[in-house]
């Protein structure tokens, strides 16, 4: 009996898809209400982000960027979900989720400063509700429950959304976070981008659970598994989750089933040690940009000319952002000391003086 119940639960988490690999709408009823301009905007963002990702990888190899986690393959998952947000919604990103916070308002040059290990990357502009990329896997998930409860208690019509990966769904903070948000019916959306590998460990080895989405059941919250290479499905699932949250119906866990084409980060990871070329090929045939391009071309909304224009714009923007990052003054140890507390305690005052002396030499 328990075995049957488990199978029943698992069978309920089927993949939600709107746009298939061939660029065909396979679920007309679920088609989100997006204008032609919005569809084009979504495509522009995906193309732009892929070019920026390629440039970032190349800048990293030239030693001009620093810490970088490639995003190609995950554009639909990242950008489709962010596109469903209101400007005042909060994003609590993991370390790879730079595209979402940039499209939410963080200037690109600050994302580059973050990569380089400069505090300027964390000095979020006043009107942008995002946190700095989280390094500890899953720590942002419990914080999301807090931000969401805060928004609810302040009577805001906004949600908090957070991102982690398939590995993140094994962390204690994942379970604590979705459980807290559920207990308080807080307006939170938890996105687990299941890109199949936590660095090298395949998702099958993370858990006996067939899907990550089904983990929502234990927390008593809604859960959905979405084709993470389908930008329309990701958008729709996030939009629905957001609306439910704002109606007071609590959080949703969204598993976006996707793939990262590149290495875990640019710091020496070699995916050929744990993935086959066949698997890479299989996933590249599901590419989010290719299928969405096919759809938009069939609607007469996209052209090679348009694509080239976006690519050029992305390259130009990256060039300018790197220049702006280069022009940012080098940080000082005295500044780090100043960021520790609202006002300096005597002990740090003394240490500040020491470094001030060194810095003025």
């Amino acid at each position: 009996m328990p075995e049957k119940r488990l199978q029943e639960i698992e069978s309920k988490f089927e993949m939600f898809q709107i746009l298939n690999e061939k660029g065909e709408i396979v679920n007309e009823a679920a088609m989100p209400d997006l204008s032609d301009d919005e569809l084009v905007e979504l495509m522009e963002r995906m193309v732009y982000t892929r070019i920026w990702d390629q440039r970032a990888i190349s800048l990293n190899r030239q030693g001009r960027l620093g810490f970088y986690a490639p995003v190609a393959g995950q554009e639909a998952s990242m950008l489709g979900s962010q596109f469903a947000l209101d400007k005042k919604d909060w994003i609590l990103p993991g370390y790879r989720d730079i595209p979402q916070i940039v499209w939410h308002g963080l200037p690109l040059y600050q994302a580059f400063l973050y990569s380089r290990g400069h505090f300027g990357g964390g000095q979020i502009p006043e009107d942008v509700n995002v946190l700095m990329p989280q390094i500890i896997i899953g720590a942002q998930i419990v914080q999301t429950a807090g931000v969401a409860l805060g928004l609810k208690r302040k009577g805001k019509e906004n949600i908090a959304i957070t991102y982690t990966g398939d590995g993140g769904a094994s962390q204690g903070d994942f379970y604590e976070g979705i459980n807290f948000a559920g207990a308080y019916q807080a307006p939170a959306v938890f996105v687990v981008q299941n890109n199949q590998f936590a660095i090298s460990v395949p998702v099958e080895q993370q858990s006996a659970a067939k899907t990550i989405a089904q983990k929502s059941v234990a927390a008593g919250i809604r859960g959905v598994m979405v084709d993470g290479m389908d930008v329309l499905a990701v958008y729709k699932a996030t939009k629905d989750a957001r609306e439910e949250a704002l109606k007071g119906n609590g959080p949703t866990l969204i598993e976006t089933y996707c793939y990262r084409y590149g290495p875990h980060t640019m710091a020496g990871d070699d995916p050929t040690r744990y993935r086959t070329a066949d698997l890479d090929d299989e996933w590249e045939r599901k590419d989010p940009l290719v299928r969405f391009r096919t759809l938009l071309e069939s609607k007469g909304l996209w052209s090679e000319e348009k694509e080239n224009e976006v690519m050029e714009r992305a390259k130009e923007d990256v060039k300018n952002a790197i220049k702006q990052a280069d022009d940012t003054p080098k940080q000082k140890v005295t500044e780090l000391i100043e960021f520790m507390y609202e006002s300096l305690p005597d002990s740090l005052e003394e240490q500040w003086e020491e470094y001030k002396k060194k810095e003025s030499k």
Partner: protein
Amino acid sequence: MAQMTMIQAITDAMRTELKNDENVLVFGEDVGQNGGVFRATEGLQKEFGEERVFDTPLAESGITGLAIGLGLTGFRPVMEIQFFGFLFETMDGIAGQMSRMRYRSGGHYHSPITIRSPFGGGVKTPELHADSLEGLMAQTPGIKVVIPSTPYDAKGLLISAIRDNDPVIFLEHMKLYRSFREEVPEEEYTIEIGKADIKREGKDVTIVTYGAMVHTALRAADQLEEEGIDAEIVDLRTISPLDVETVIESVKKTNRAIVVQEAQRQAGIAANVSAEISERAILHLEAPVMRVTAPDTVYAFAEVEDEWIPGEEDIIEKVKASLDF
């Protein structure tokens, strides 16, 4: 003025700030309906409602994450860790996350959070309840650590902690909760975080300590007085940041220093205080700075904890060793 125990003073401080600032929220395991396992939040939910004073699910990392998120959205959280030994469950939340919010964002965000937690030995708890883990916290930049020794200090320091825009860990020694009463003003007042207090003036030797050990040291000082030895007792009250100035002033006056802590010896607060004295007042010393601490074992099993925790005799012995040096 009213006579209050330390726990009453703590409740009074929270009540004061819940009244003063609608953004103050008090939460943790059993703090709502039940008023806390030690009754520190007794009556507060009834007075301020379930939106201001509430229970959380049982998960320390979750509670810390909740506090961080509420802090980001304009609230001033006062969270409770039911016993400070449970700190390990949320070490990342506090040391990896909360304490770094201001730094990580280059000053843009902050965590105006107070973490209240009972700790300290002598009350026969099971394991991981009584541990003195303040040293771990004192070594965490970005966080302040306050340990009151009296009801009066507890109220003034807790109000300061709640109003502070940086995270403050406020540790409440279980043995002091109800051990004595003293006059505590019913109106609000604050005591500056980072300032030590001379709990007993003396001229022969300085005893630097904090928490329940302040009272052990006071008892030792009474006995020493009978032998004509006049000890000065510096109650640190805040162990991070440390009030080095008050300690040094006292040592310059008495020329001898004993540092006493309930925690184990290695790399603790006493070691830090001792180093500060050595660096800043070595020529004023007539004897080496000496420490009285617990031994470097895991916190003692309940049956033997009274022998494990430093006592008056240990302090008296070190004071005499210093005087005889």
